[in-house]
């Protein structure tokens, strides 16, 4: 690495960007006027977390001997789904999250009691609400209680302020940094190509890695600057509000923690800059780069939102999810709960991903690919007039998503089975058919259909029948679905009350999605993206879109994992049919297990047994993939 070249490029890119009005407008003007709004996903995550909290009984302890301790304990014990009564507890236990609620009974104090809770913790506030309802049910209407309760939150005002701020600030940090990196990343890559300066740079004696590192550092600096300017603007606004409402202020803002928390801007800027520059490097034009980066922008916002809204701990796999880990680290720093392990895992994840993105950018930014004219393909007689482009793929996804959300979901909510059938056969299959007809292609060519080899179909069936176990167990480990939601899903899709037969359920839940969803996702979307991206990137982005299409945060990971497998099968076999077979087998296995009530037994298995099942699942899936690869058509000599 030649550091002189890196810093020369860094300085040159920074100077160019700061002389560009569009960059300045996005970096300074736009954030001062507009702050993004939270969307449906945020509400969904919040609801999911609320349900999880509702399922968990609150921990409560009684201290002191005043009032009628036994009567109160009896009332609490009478509600085992709401409370677990611990033999003892202290205010410090409430403060450190070991106890949700502490009721202090004052001796000889006229029936007064003090309820201690932590207003900065959702669980503690839920416990306090539950105690209120227990008290309310204890006395018939019109009867006054024989005691008076005083409530006191153990959370210091600054912690409460930090808690309130932690719900908003981390997400803003991520959004602003993303926004700050977006335009400069396109400008230094696709913009350079469009302005005709690419050849000049690539024929000078600078290594591609040095060149891209200089560019990434410049974009990261601009993104960080955007983040800092936005935070400064937010802070000034907040101070102004607090000054004007000084009389009614009930919280203090922990400015020290906020400052510490805002330091995550810098690693976040590096990560997003590297990712955006890598993607921008694949584009031929500015417009194309915008089309490619927008979905990634939203894909990054989604986990960041989940982190901001949900009460996830920064530990385990969560600490490695980009966007989410940054939001959670900022939150923990704000409320003073950051741990070394969470912080280090986040930093390691950011560093690893940034280096990987940078290496990919250096590989992609190759004159051989960028300077060469796009290959002119000679059209064989009878071949379609055009093929699906990456832009077509994204437009098709957007159309399918809009149709589902605004047309078919309302039907599904009234009648699930008919809604699902219409959504799949009209909204997906019909859409692809219409696309094929209107884009000068045949339906088959829009799908990327070719006759599969029997061995590839066999391999796909094996992979589809076995992959579900690893996918399900891994997803449950990363992001467990609240039991209530899982039950609702089971009841609606696979009713066990005899209202829908096994075959009808298979047709609805396995056959239909296998055909219709594959038609769209492993058809024009995958093949369209493949025209601009390499196989891995096209498969992963298609899988991410497939996951998002299911509009369920808890099914995002399993559907994405399945999407990766299906995309890989479709590309390796050179046909969409094996992907349909694998999709069918996967869903059919889940239906069969649920029908035999075997899925519930999975929850009771030991860790060791689950590990063995995962290993078996991976081995069988790999064997299926090997069969598909073995069946691959070799180029004719």
């Amino acid at each position, binding site marked *: 690495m030649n550091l*002189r*070249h890196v810093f*020369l490029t860094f300085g*040159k890119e920074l*100077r*160019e960007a700061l*002389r*560009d009005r569009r960059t300045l407008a996005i970096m300074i003007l736009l954030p001062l006027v507009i702050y993004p709004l939270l969307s449906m996903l945020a509400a969904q995550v919040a609801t999911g977390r609320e349900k999880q909290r509702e399922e968990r009984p609150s921990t409560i302890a009684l201290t002191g001997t005043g009032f009628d301790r036994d009567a109160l304990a009896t009332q609490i014990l009478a509600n085992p789904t709401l409370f677990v009564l611990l033999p003892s507890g202290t205010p410090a236990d409430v403060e450190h999250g070991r106890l949700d609620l502490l009721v202090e009974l004052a001796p000889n104090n006229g029936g007064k009691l003090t309820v201690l809770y932590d207003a900065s913790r959702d669980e503690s506030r839920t416990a306090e609400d539950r105690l209120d309802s227990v008290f309310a049910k204890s006395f018939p209407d019109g009867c006054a209680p024989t005691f008076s309760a005083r409530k006191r939150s153990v959370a210091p005002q600054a912690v409460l302020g930090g808690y309130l701020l932690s719900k908003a600030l981390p997400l803003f940090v991520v959004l602003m940094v993303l926004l700050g990196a977006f335009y400069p990343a396109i400008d230094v890559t696709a913009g350079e190509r469009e*302005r*005709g*300066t*690419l*050849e*000049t*740079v*690539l*024929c*000078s*004696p*600078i*290594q591609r890695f040095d060149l891209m590192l200089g560019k990434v550092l410049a974009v990261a600096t601009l993104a960080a600057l955007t983040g800092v300017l936005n935070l400064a603007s937010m802070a000034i606004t907040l101070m102004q509000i607090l000054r004007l409402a000084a009389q009614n202020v009930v919280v203090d803002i922990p400015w020290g923690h906020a400052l510490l928390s805002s330091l995550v801007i810098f690693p976040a800027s590096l990560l997003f800059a590297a990712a955006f520059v890598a993607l921008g490097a694949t584009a031929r034009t500015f417009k194309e780069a915008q089309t490619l980066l927008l979905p990634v922008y939203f894909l990054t916002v989604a986990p960041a939102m989940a982190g901001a809204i949900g009460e996830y701990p920064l530990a385990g796999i969560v600490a490695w999810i980009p966007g989410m880990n940054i939001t959670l680290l900022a939150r923990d720093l704000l409320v003073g709960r950051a741990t070394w392990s969470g912080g280090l895992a986040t930093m390691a994840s950011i560093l690893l991903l940034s280096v990987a993105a940078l290496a990919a950018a250096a590989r992609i930014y190759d*004159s*051989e690919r960028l*300077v*060469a*004219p796009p*290959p*002119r*393909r*000679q059209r064989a007689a009878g071949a379609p007039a055009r093929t699906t482009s990456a832009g077509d793929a994204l437009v098709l996804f957007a159309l399918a998503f809009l149709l589902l959300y605004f047309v078919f979901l309302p039907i599904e909510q009234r009648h699930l089975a008919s809604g699902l059938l219409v959504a799949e056969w009209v909204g997906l299959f019909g859409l692809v058919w219409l696309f094929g007809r209107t884009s000068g292609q045949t339906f088959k060519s829009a799908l990327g259909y070719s006759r599969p080899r029997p061995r590839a179909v066999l391999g796909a069936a094996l992979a589809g029948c076995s992959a579900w176990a690893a996918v399900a167990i891994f997803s449950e480990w990363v992001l467990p679905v609240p039991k209530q939601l899982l039950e609702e899903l089971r009841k609606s899709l696979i009713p066990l009350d005899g209202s829908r037969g096994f075959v009808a359920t298979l047709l609805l839940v396995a056959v239909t999605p296998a055909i219709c969803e594959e038609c769209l996702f492993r058809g024009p979307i995958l093949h369209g993206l493949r025209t601009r991206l390499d196989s891995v990137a096209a498969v992963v982005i298609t899988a991410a879109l497939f996951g998002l299409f299911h509009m369920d945060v808890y099914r995002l990971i399993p559907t994405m994992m399945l999407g990766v497998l299906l995309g890989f099968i479709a590309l390796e076999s050179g046909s969409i049919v094996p992907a349909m077979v694998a999709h069918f087998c996967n869903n059919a296995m889940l239906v069969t297990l649920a029908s035999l009530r075997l899925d519930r037994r999975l929850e009771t298995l030991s860790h060791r047994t689950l590990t063995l099942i995962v290993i078996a699942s991976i081995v069988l899936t790999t064997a299926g993939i090997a069969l598909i690869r073995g069946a691959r058509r070799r180029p004719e000599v």
Partner: protein
Amino acid sequence: MEMAGKVEGMLGPLAVLDSASKSFGDVLAVARLSLSIPGGEIYGLLGPNGAGKTTALRMLAGLLGPSLGSARVAGQDANTSAAKRRLGYLSGSTGLFGRLTPREVLDYFGQIHGLSRVEIGQRVAALAPALALEGILDRRCEALSTGERQRVSIARAVLHDPAVLILDEPTSGLDVLASRFMRDFIRAERARGKAVLFSTHYLAEAELLCDRIGFLHRGRLIAEGSPTEIRAQTGKSTLEEAFLALAQNAEETEDPGDLL
């Protein structure tokens, strides 16, 4: 700092394409092209649009690797830093950063080529009067006229005093005065011992300037020699007539299967 342009003592040709072929997908852009340009020579690569001129120049500039054969600059593989340090390349577009000034552009590329700030200052001071840059060095490149941009691009290409100059249609879009200025500059570089390879589809310009000419047609070199030799070979009085005769002959005898 050793100036790359000090070509004395270097034996053999400075720019070489050795049976170089380049294909994009199933399209063959250049087929088994061999060129060899010594120092002190101006070589013109001629041909209609799509003949493969730019692809041939890009292979020598290290931007495209030959599918078959090799490309070398000053004895080094063209796609190495050592070769790129001895090469000055002027692309079809001017390749200037619009939001920077010519002085900043020259400073950036000078440092990338290993020159110190002082050396860059001295080189800019020497080049400015020759290329009429004095009044425009501190204006943004995006505000310059086509001719001014072309002069800045030349300064960028020769700032590090390279041994080999590759110019892709250097007079395209220039007015009469600017074109003449460019031709004078190319002759001056030849006089300094540089190997100059340039592409053009202006045959009259090639006749005025080149020591040797190569005619490209559908990626193949169909004739090579001095303008006088080529006219004599074809029995035509102008290069344009000679080229038309050669192209027609090539169309009649071309065997597509023999290209690679």
